[in-house]
């Protein structure tokens, strides 16, 4: 559950979730579960072209409402650079891939 543990520690930080349908949503990571379902707050759409209703809705939603994103539709989670120790993450993932 490497990524579940990893994302738990990013709670409270700004992330951008890119979905497999190309929609990108930026917000504060509220919580995450073992299936990498993601709840965001303060959400706003990064790419506004494909879902204009979505962008209008999200741009005006400030701080109050959560957005729940199904883990299986997430393509990428873009992280704040200051929240990432690349070397450490490399080592952890390499170690786990090795089964050690």
């Amino acid at each position, binding site marked *: 559950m*490497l990524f579940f*543990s990893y994302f*738990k520690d990013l709670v409270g930080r700004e992330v951008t979730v890119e979905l497999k349908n190309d929609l990108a949503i930026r917000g504060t990571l509220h919580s995450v579960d073992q299936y990498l379902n993601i709840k965001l707050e303060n959400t706003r759409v990064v790419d506004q072209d494909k879902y204009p209703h979505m962008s209008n809705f999200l741009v005006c939603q400030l701080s109050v409402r959560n957005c729940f994103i199904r883990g*299986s539709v997430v393509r990428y989670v873009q992280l704040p650079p200051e929240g990432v*120790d690349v070397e450490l993450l490399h080592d952890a993932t390499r170690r786990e891939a090795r089964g050690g």
Partner: protein
Amino acid sequence: MATGLRNVAERAGDGAGQPILDVDNGEELMHVQSGVAIVLGNRPPKSPGTLYISNRQVVWLSDTDRAKGYAVDFYSVSLHAVSRDPESYPSPCIYAQIEASGNEEDELEDSDSENDDALTLSKVTEIRLVPSDPNQLDTLFHIFCECAELNPDPLEEEDSDNDWVFSGDVMAANAEDDDNPEWDVLQNRTHSIGANGNHDLVHSVVRLQINDQRFEDAEEMERNETNGRH
């Protein structure tokens, strides 16, 4: 796994009836909300209707037309949220995106808003559920969350052709490793979503443990195989 929005033409019971649930396989009703209109994509809202949320799917049944109903599995709900912005929709509602199952090459045209055949419905990617009582929105949102969490994607069969790329030192380490990695059964813990702490990132990463079989090594390679396989 996602099947998209579909028609519901049959119901159980008399009168306005109820959705037919797969009770033998553990489907059960979690919440019923009357006085809900449904909006498919950009089409006009359909009402009056009743919303039935089971642990597998969301079903909307028209109160007046027994042949009219819609359902979507939670597998297909990509995201959901509470919409209170009057500019995106005049009434507060639950907004949800559906992973459409239609073919990409077919043209999606709303030529007939009343045309609810399976092909058109499967291309609907956005729906709104508009309760007549907006105070119910938070409850509906949380039930959607709970039920979505109950419906993760089932684990797929591991491909025999796992195209993992290893660096040279990792390959050497694997060759020396006599242990066959055990296939840990994914624990059926229910980690509900909630506010998690803000731990020190460095220490947490160092202490990470994985018991997920998806991260297990592929089967041991034959010693005779060359390192060129990737």
